[in-house]
């Protein structure tokens, strides 16, 4: 199963990539939206795991929306460090996010979420 991981915290990005790969997923990681858009030219993800607030003009939701245009089956998990209630409702209104995870989260929570949305 292909996972596209977009996270601008490099350490987190590397560690999650490692953990996901050890768990048996094929992972392509990017630290910003532009790299992620480039990556999908050669890689078709089943799941997008993205930070909500990304460096640059495009945030995680906008990125997910664009990727869904070419891959309507794409499942989206948003991970975020600041989740005010207004932000949560904004994400939910977009209607394309399957799971929201608040940082910091144990890897087991991420695994459980992936399992749930792929069943």
């Amino acid at each position, binding site marked *: 199963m292909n996972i596209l991981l977009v996270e601008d*915290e490099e*350490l*987190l990005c*590397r*560690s*999650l990539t*490692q*953990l996901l790969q*050890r768990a048996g997923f094929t992972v392509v990681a990017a630290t910003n939206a532009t790299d992620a858009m480039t990556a999908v030219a050669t890689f078709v993800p089943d799941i997008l795991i993205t930070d909500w*607030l990304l460096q640059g003009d495009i945030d995680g939701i906008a990125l997910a929306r664009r990727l869904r245009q070419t891959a309507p089956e794409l499942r989206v998990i948003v*991970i975020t*460090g*600041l989740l*005010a*209630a207004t932000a*949560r*409702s904004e994400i*939910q209104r977009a209607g394309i*996010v*399957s*799971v*929201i*995870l*608040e*940082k*910091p*989260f*144990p*890897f087991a929570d991420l695994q459980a*979420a992936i399992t749930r949305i792929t069943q």
Partner: protein
Amino acid sequence: MSAGAVATLPAPAPRTQVLVSRVRFGIYTAIVAVSGMGLSELLLRPHALDPLDGTQLYAIAVLLCSSALLRVHETEGWAICIGLFALAMTCVAMERVAVLSGEVPVQGYIALVMGTAAMAPWGLRGQIGATIVVTVGYWLNVRSLPDHHVFLTSRESSSVLVAAAASLYITWILDREHAANVHELHRESTQREELERRVRERTLALSESNKALSAEVSDRRRLQDQLLLISDSFPGFLGYVDGDQRYVWVNHAYETYWRRPRTEIVGRRMSELHTPVIYRLLEEHIAQALDDSSTRTEVYSVDGLRAKVEVTVMPHRGPDGALHGFVILGLDISAREAAEEQTRRTERLAALGTLAAGIAHEINNPAASILATAEMARDSLHPTENPFLDEALTGIAKEAMRCGQIVRGILRFAREEAPLRALQPILGVVERAGELLRGELALTGASLHIDCSATPEPIAIDASGILQVVLNLATNALRAQAKVVTIRSSLRPAHLALEVIDDGRGMSTAEGSRAFDPFFTTARGNGGTGLGLSISHTIVAQHGGTIEIRSAAGTGTTVTVVLPRQSTPPLPMVAARTGT
């Protein structure tokens, strides 16, 4: 009105005095005139005295008396005088007719004397004038008669003139006396009238001033009533104390505050009314206010006072600087201070919430990196390869999670939305808390008693929020070394009360006052973050409820959460960890 204020009036000169005076005058005049004429007749014509002459004399005397009497009333006197004068002229005419017809003539001097008397009302001048007129008239009358008809001899004429002169003289003397009497009487009468006028004026002025005084008294009474009403509706206690520290006047709040009726306060010294502790404070306060002659306010907060009181002493001095007394004003400021403290606390929490939201992102991201990296590193190890490292990495991951929980806890302050509420019995939530606490109870050896039988009906609550509150309170109890923790619910008219009672070490007053402050904890190093009560407070407040702590060092703590049984309509759930 005092008796001395009224002038004692002299008895008014009676009108009868004037009457008597004039009667006497008339009698004198008549007696003298008649005596003079009679004497001259006797002396000059003793042989010719006949009955007719005697009659004439009496008639003359009566007329003279009458004329004198009539001077009393001037208007009537005029009429009578004119009548007498006409009578005199009639006599002259009769005499003239008698003479011309050859009969015995009437003595002509009758007319003279009668005419003289007729002028009596005009006093001496009147009589002189009348005498002249009558004499001239008589003379002209006699002259027009034939010579042989002149009956009056020169001696007779002389006697008449003597009588008239005597009459005039006496009249003059009496008239002078009379004038003096009249003048005196007039003066007295004027004085009396003046006095009466002044009395009338003063009575009028007195009556006016009485009216003004009465109006002023009524105005003052109304003002006094208004002042009493104002002072009695004043929320603070207010009193006036004289220079001997004796209560002169107190308002209604004074009675209520010091729990004594006004009658027991007024007239008593301050030292008698107040306990020694309070009186010492008051005495010092008053002395300071009197020293610098200024209004002075102090806050009293001692045992024996029902609340924290702000007392103001205002000295009252006269224009000469002498001390009359002072005003004491007391305001219960406990409620105000509590409200201020509540505001301060809310502001502190709001500021903290804003700050927490600001730093949450900055902390959660590195915490997530630490957690994921620690897990990744641990995953790279074989568990048996290096147990110490495995434990260390597990610890790092756990602490990174705790960072996230702390930030999440703080962020609850910044939550703007009301929690999602659903109707459910409180027992379910409390039992769930009991299950979650099982491990900790086993660890501490404490027991938990749950009694929610009094509140079986459902209540609208955010179950996860209230669960967190119950968990926080019970965890606090266990950290305070409680051996028995009781969670009990009860019904109040519009509320449900949930009590968490422990027999732990309790809190001192100072600890209790800070219990709701974020990060304040008595269990530092024992797992306490100092956020449990502040988060619980926020959650309960979002339910529209209150949370109260009753505690004393060594006697355990009771925390009461009061939740309204009727709630506002539920709002969307916002705190779900996961969505679908």
